């Protein structure tokens, strides 16, 4: 394994780790809310 490949692998891993931490603690993608009973949108409850 040459030095360039080692560096690519190491820094890709670092980028992935940073992306994970940012997603986990700083920027969380918003989940779509599910339709619940009583929301008046024809959920079938009444």
């Amino acid at each position: 394994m040459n030095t360039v490949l080692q560096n690519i692998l190491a820094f890709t891993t670092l980028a992935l780790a940073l992306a994970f931490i940012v997603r986990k603690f700083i920027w969380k993608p918003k989940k779509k809310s599910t339709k619940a009973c009583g929301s008046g949108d024809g959920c079938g409850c009444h």
Partner: protein
Amino acid sequence: MSKQINVALIGNPNTGKTSVFNALTGLNQKVGNYPGITVEKKQGICKLPRGVKAHIIDLPGTYSLNASSLDENVVIELLLNKNDKDFPDIAVVVTDVENLKRNLLLFTQIKDLEIPTLLVINMADRMRYKGISLDINYLEDKLNTKIALISTRKNEGIDKLKQLISNYKEVSVAPCINTTQIDSVYFGNLKKAFPNQLLYKLWLVITQDVNFGKTDRNKIDPVANFKTKSKGDLKRLQQKETIKRYQFINNALDKGQTIDLSQAKDLRIKLDRVLTHKVWGYVIFAVILLTIFQAIYDWSSVPMDFIDSAFASLSEWTKNQLPNGAFTSLLAEGIIPGLGGIVIFIPQIAFLFLFIAILEESGYMSRVVFLMDRIMRRFGLSGKSVVPLISGTACAIPAIMATRNIESWKERLITILVTPFTTCAARLPVYLIIIALVIPEGRILGLSYQALTLMLLYLIGFGTAIVSAYILNKILKIKSKTFFVIEMPNYKLPLFKNVAITVIEKTKSFVFGAGKIILAISIILWFLASYGPGKQFNDAENIIKTEFASKNLSSENLQQKIASHKLEHSFIGIAGHAIEPTIRPLGYDWKIGIAIVSSFAAREVFVGTLATIYSVGSDQEETIKNRMAGEVNPILGGPLFTFASGISLLLFYAFAMQCMSTLAIVKRETNSWKWPILQLVIMTAFAYIVALIAFQVLK
């Protein structure tokens, strides 16, 4: 392609619903949350006869369909919402043979929703001890359903239950009671206004608003010729409904169930008399706690030592086998030591959850809650606050969520604010490694000093939570009333399968939940410790060689000096030195400072961080503990981890709010940033002052 059906497992708490779920699904299950809320959602797959697969949902325990908490609301929302992807093809209501009458109330309500409903009568093995006999055919006829009499303990009746579920189309959907009988005028008008709707479903939608305030009744109110009643009137109608249901149940049980009290052998009263005694109850609880902490230490030392040396060898092996370079260094000095820092604690965490699961399964935990209620009342907390405080020993996040069943806002807020003081599983790795370093291995009365220290830390956490609650109760000016009701389940021998599943699930969630964060942080730390700006870092080799040219150092010593110099001038070294003046009075060096800062993401990151920092640049195969023990205080000389600095660190972690996720959950539960910010500032300041005093007094 095989057919899949949805099966909802429903039942009162303590009916063995989860045991039925485990018996049907085995390890083929997963735990998550309901969307948008944080009530636990357990689901699994069960193979039924004739190639049918059942997707089984273990719904939260509920006493009725009149929801009064978020947990219970999940059940009713699923049963009322036909469009939900989990809407059941069949509902399986689990009951306890000893509490059949009370458990059947929920059964009749679900049946009246005209959902195919099976009745499971669990704990059949206890019938003999309680003098109970059942006429199943008679009950099936009266309740208009199919019944599975099972014992999850003895693994009896499970195949019959599977058979009945697979024949779900044959299960009657006839209701138990005629809803209009509750109040003919009111329900007559309701029927006229909504001729195409199921009456009982409408009734639940209307009354759910009364009970819980979640469902919007505005869609019903404006309909011509119909007006809902006042809340008081609706409550009276609910009471009438309950009476009608019990009349129906009594009618079925009159002949379907006989109880011969002369045959009943009840050990429960005798046990309760001792275990909830105002003196012996506490003594027994203290002895049980001591035994648990002693066992955690004694039993897990062998696997822990093995894991520690295995990771050290793996790191060394990786370094020797792979070609030199950045990625090899990342693996050997970042990822492997970081992972080792979490895997090493699996034995202790598994043992802790094993004991907690046994206490819960046996029914003893409810007695502890009852016992502790006497104490909690004096500190302005509800008896229900005990559940979050005890479950806080696992993790503060679900514990804070568990406060949702505390009706009084003041008590709930106080419980939320003090729960993070309880010693959570994330503190355990920090405590264990520091205790191993600074507390001697001797014993007193057969109990090791280390186990006693660990127990003391748990008591300090619990004691601080209680005292803080007392202070908050005096400070917070919120008026509210509350009451405490708890069901005491029967004593049972814990089921191996249930205990094993709990231990596996909890340990898995600890390892994978925290493990991912630790791994990511280890990688980032490796980068920060392996690279640095400026001449001091990049030219470290020449600087050290010039500095020590006259001293004739061995090659190994020289390499260590270079590694140490590089680390000190790396990014992490610069950051660590910047915060060092703040933490030096506590007895910590810059490396511990970095570990404290990084463990703000999650406390258990502390050990992984130190393992990563200490291993960067080190050529020796060493365990985490030995590396920490070998660290030298840069100012005073001698070991860095002394009794004084160790106790200071233990106390800092006992009190500091080192958990971002907990702060996020407090924000969500209180709907304000005010409380988590106050919590963070007060807890951290308190931790700093206590750690400072401890170090300055003990050094």
